[in-house]
């Protein structure tokens, strides 16, 4: 009986599998040729299939492709200048992605991975990703600052240590941040609230839009930031990396370690441990120190996975803890103080170097627990189950202790938020073996926010449920692709707002439901050229701050009023892009027109509000029609052997159609140019390079008149210098070294998107070093 059952299962499996493995000769083998050490793409590497006597050459991004293969096992030889040839045996039974990892010194066996999916995921809005080199150079910076290397991404800063990503002019609730597949839920509405994520967790940082963005939620009006850790180890053994970063300005020290393992005997059990410690002191502009700008941070995470062929489970836990000093001179009592601060050449409070953090400061903790299980549904797809819990604590300590001594002695934060979020998701994704590909899923979120101290953002509970369907299609010759996604969300929110007049809580109830969607196409007539177009619809409900803000915002020297009658914001975004690469030339142009109905913004209103501290300008959260038009443009050209020029340009026009005026607070237009020279390898020094970069930022002139206390700061040019190399240590281990000098000429400048531009200059010259030892 038992035996009969086994035979039956065996037959069933073979029937299912057999159904998809007809013997034709139309399979494609493609993938990347990647440097084993720094994971950079290798261009002009040659591939040769011995048995068939055919071959291919990798392009500027290391991609290769061989089509028209029959089922079988082939011997592939990969050669690249400076590497010994490697030979691997590859089995083809479907369209296959196979990456090759040639090495500069060849005693070791080559590791490789074959992805199950038959085709590289393409998107109708290109995914923008930090390269391995950019990742290493940005180590030590915050998540927001790291993302700045991506064209079209800027940051909204509060001083030097709080920075939020701004994508095509939009930020905060309009940008979704995915930390290890889970939407980051903290107090994202605030301008001075940066994403609570340790960038060292990330193996990859990228920005996506379009149909794949639909998966993660409705409110990704600007896009989705993906923070992706590397996959857990899939073969027995232990590896890891040790990072050290330092910077002269603020005497930054940061160290981070990561350890990956796979327990050979318990086949399929793998684990990871990771931790980061960071300490920064008062930073310096070219002329003076900034008082109370120190920072400390400690983060850790662990992951545990059990992966079998047909199923797997993965558990992840991370903690982020930080204390951030807030520049003292930016704390002002009233408009008279602000006027004095603006008129002063130097901040009114002088400082020396110290690591000490005093009031005002923020203490932030963020905790993420995630459990994920997957089940392969035969040969056709995979079913994912995800549960995650996040807890976010934000404490804000004012500059001065309360006057009352007994209360002051408690040293409590003047403001404290705690937000707890539970997320559940079930998703099914079809394997990409056919012309069509389907993804479908449902998710649900439960969230509760509480506060103590000053009345600012009310307590609330929020429940939301969403469902999505993403469908992709590609033509047989792979020249044409379509993708479309649709999502429906229902949100219920109950807000408990303290009413100081009747001295009771009042309950406000909101329900929202709406559809978001995306449709796009890619046309790739040749391997050198592609054109993409995408139309997306997205919406987001107003956040509690926009609904309930009520009173003086000390940081902004303004009285801000929310509007409890605001409706959801809705965006219609059209993006078109062309990519062209030929020999040593790369050209990418992406244009967009984002039309937003009921765009929520702070509108200045009259009269000024009279308080016991004097009169303050008044702002009301209002809704207008907005249009954000812009383009990103990047080019790369290899002039001569080893000399590469890279240019990146971002322009944006953000217009308020209702009031026929510009929108305030949008990033200025900018150029970035860099020239890199790669030296020849030495036996003990691999991939030495030197790079010089210039970033030119225009003055933001597209602002409404009289919308600000001071005009936007003047244009500036910043120079950076980078030098780096890697040193092979033992066997496959290596030490990657990157030196940098930021603000090489010690330029005095202020940036429009720094909220402290009224008070102080930006940082002066900064020498940085990043070491990464992989083992």
């Amino acid at each position: 009986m038992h035996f009969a059952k086994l035979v039956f299962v065996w037959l069933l499996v073979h029937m299912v599998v057999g159904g998809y493995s007809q013997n034709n000769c139309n399979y494609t083998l493609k993938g990347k040729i990647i440097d084993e050490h720094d994971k950079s793409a290798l261009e002009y590497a040659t591939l040769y299939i011995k048995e068939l006597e055919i071959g291919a050459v990798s392009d500027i991004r290391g991609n290769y492709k061989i089509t028209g293969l029959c089922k079988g096992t082939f011997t592939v030889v990969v050669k690249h200048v400076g590497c010994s040839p490697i030979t691997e045996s590859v089995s083809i039974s479907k369209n296959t992605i196979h990456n090759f990892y040639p090495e500069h010194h060849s005693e070791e066996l080559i590791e490789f991975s074959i992805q199950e999916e038959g085709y590289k995921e393409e998107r109708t809005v290109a995914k923008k990703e930090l390269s391995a080199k950019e990742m290493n150079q940005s180590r030590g910076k915050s998540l927001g600052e790291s993302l700045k290397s991506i064209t079209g991404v800027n940051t909204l800063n509060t001083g030097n240590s709080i920075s939020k990503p701004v994508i095509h002019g939009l930020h905060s609730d309009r940008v979704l941040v995915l930390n290890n597949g889970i939407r980051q839920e903290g107090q994202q509405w605030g301008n001075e609230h940066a994403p609570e994520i340790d960038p060292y967790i990330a193996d990859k940082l990228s920005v996506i839009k379009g149909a794949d963005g639909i998966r993660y939620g409705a409110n990704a009006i600007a896009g989705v930031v993906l923070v992706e850790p590397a996959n857990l180890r899939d073969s027995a053994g232990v590896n890891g990396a040790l990072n050290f970063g330092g910077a002269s300005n603020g005497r930054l020290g940061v160290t981070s370690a990561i350890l990956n393992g796979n327990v050979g005997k318990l086949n399929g059990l793998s684990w990871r441990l990771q931790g980061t410690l960071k300490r920064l002191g008062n930073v310096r502009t070219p002329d003076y120190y900034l008082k109370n700008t120190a920072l400390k941070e400690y983060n850790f995470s662990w992951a545990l996975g059990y992966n079998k062929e047909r199923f797997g489970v993965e558990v992840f836990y991370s903690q982020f803890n930080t204390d951030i000093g807030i520049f003292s001179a930016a704390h002002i009592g009233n408009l008279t103080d602000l006027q004095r601060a603006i008129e002063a050449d130097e901040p009114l409070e002088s400082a020396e170097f110290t690591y000490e953090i005093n009031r005002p400061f923020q203490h932030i903790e963020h905790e993420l627990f995630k459990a994920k299980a997957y089940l392969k549904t035969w040969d056709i797809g995979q079913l994912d189950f995800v549960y995650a819990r996040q807890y976010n604590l934000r404490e804000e300590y004012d500059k001065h202790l309360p006057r009352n001594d007994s209360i002051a002695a408690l040293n409590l934060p003047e403001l404290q938020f705690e937000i707890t979020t539970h997320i559940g998701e079930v998703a099914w994704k079809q394997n990409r073996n056919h012309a069509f590909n389907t993804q479908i899923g449902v998710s649900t979120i439960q969230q509760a926010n509480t506060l103590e101290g000053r009345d600012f953002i009310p307590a609330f509970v929020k429940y939301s449920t969403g469902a999505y369907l993403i469908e992709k299609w590609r033509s047989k010759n792979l020249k044409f692709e379509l993708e479309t996604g649709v999502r429906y969300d229902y949100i219920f929110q109950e807000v408990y707002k303290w009413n100081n007049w009747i001295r009771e809580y009042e309950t406000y109830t909101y329900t929202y439901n709406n559809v978001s969607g995306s449709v796009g196409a890619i046309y790739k007539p040749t391997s050198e050229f592609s054109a993409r177009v995408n139309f997306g619809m997205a919406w987001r409900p107003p956040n509690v701050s926009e609904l309930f803000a009520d009173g003086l915002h000390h940081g902004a020297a303004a009285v801000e009023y929310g509007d409890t009658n605001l409706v959801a914001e809705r965006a219609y975004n059209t993006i078109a892009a062309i990519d062209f690469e030929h020999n040593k030339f790369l050209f990418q142009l992406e244009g967009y027109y984002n039309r937003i109905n009921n765009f929520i913004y702070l509108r200045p209103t009259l009269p000024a509000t009279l308080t016991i501290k004097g009169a303050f300008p008044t702002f009301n959260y209002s809704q207008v029609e907005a249009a954000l038009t812009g383009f990103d443009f990047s080019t790369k050209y290899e002039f001569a052997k080893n000399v590469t020029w890279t240019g990146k340009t971002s322009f944006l026009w953000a217009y308020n159609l209702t009031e026929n005026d510009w929108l305030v607070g949008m990033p200025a237009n900018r150029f970035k140019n860099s020239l890199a020279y790669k030296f020849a390898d030495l036996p003990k020094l691999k991939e030495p390079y030197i790079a010089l970069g210039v970033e030119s930022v225009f003055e933001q002139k597209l602002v409404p008149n009289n919308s600000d206390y001071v005009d936007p700061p003047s244009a500036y040019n910043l120079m950076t210098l980078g030098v780096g190399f890697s040193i092979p240590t033992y066997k496959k281990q290596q030490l990657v070294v990157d030196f940098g000098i930021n603000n090489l000429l010690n330029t005095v400048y202020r940036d429009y998107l720094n909220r402290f531009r009224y008070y102080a200059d930006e940082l002066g010259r900064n020498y940085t070093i990043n070491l990464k030892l992989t083992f």
Partner: protein
Amino acid sequence: MKTIKNLSILAVALVVTFAVGCKKDDDTPTPSTGGGGTPPQEEEVITTLILTFVDTAGVQPNVQYAFRDPDGDGGNAPTQHDTIRLAANTYYNASVQLLNEAESPAEDITLEVQNEDDEHLFCYAPSNTNVSIARTDSDGTYEVGITSFWSTGAIANGETTVTLKHQPGVKDGTCAPGDTDIEVTFQTEIQ
């Protein structure tokens, strides 16, 4: 051997994590208690400033003028914003009182300023009023300004701005350093 080592690393990691991990928000938001169960409160609120004038010669009656914004900054407009009316050619002893009337009973903030008099300074800036104002109290080193002496001249119509500066560690007897806690401008008539 290696497996045992790996497993022990894992075990240690798990123990450490659960020992320090999984923080909880003890408060559950409810319609009747809001977030933490206690109403949100602003520690530093000053709702009311009262100036009391006493004629040193005892001829004129004592007078009080006030600025009052019972719900604090923003929200509803101030409910009282008096014009200071003083007799011409008269010497007055003046004193300031600060209240937080959002509390019940009202909290006297003047006492707290008095306790931290080395960190606080009242500044009086008359314009077009024919009044000269001098602070008459001291923290031991510098003046404080809770009490002051006003001498009025001829009939005039102008303004007086009363400012309270918070100057922890930076008090130097002038109005320049520190943050502004209060800044109220009173219409002033000398009659």
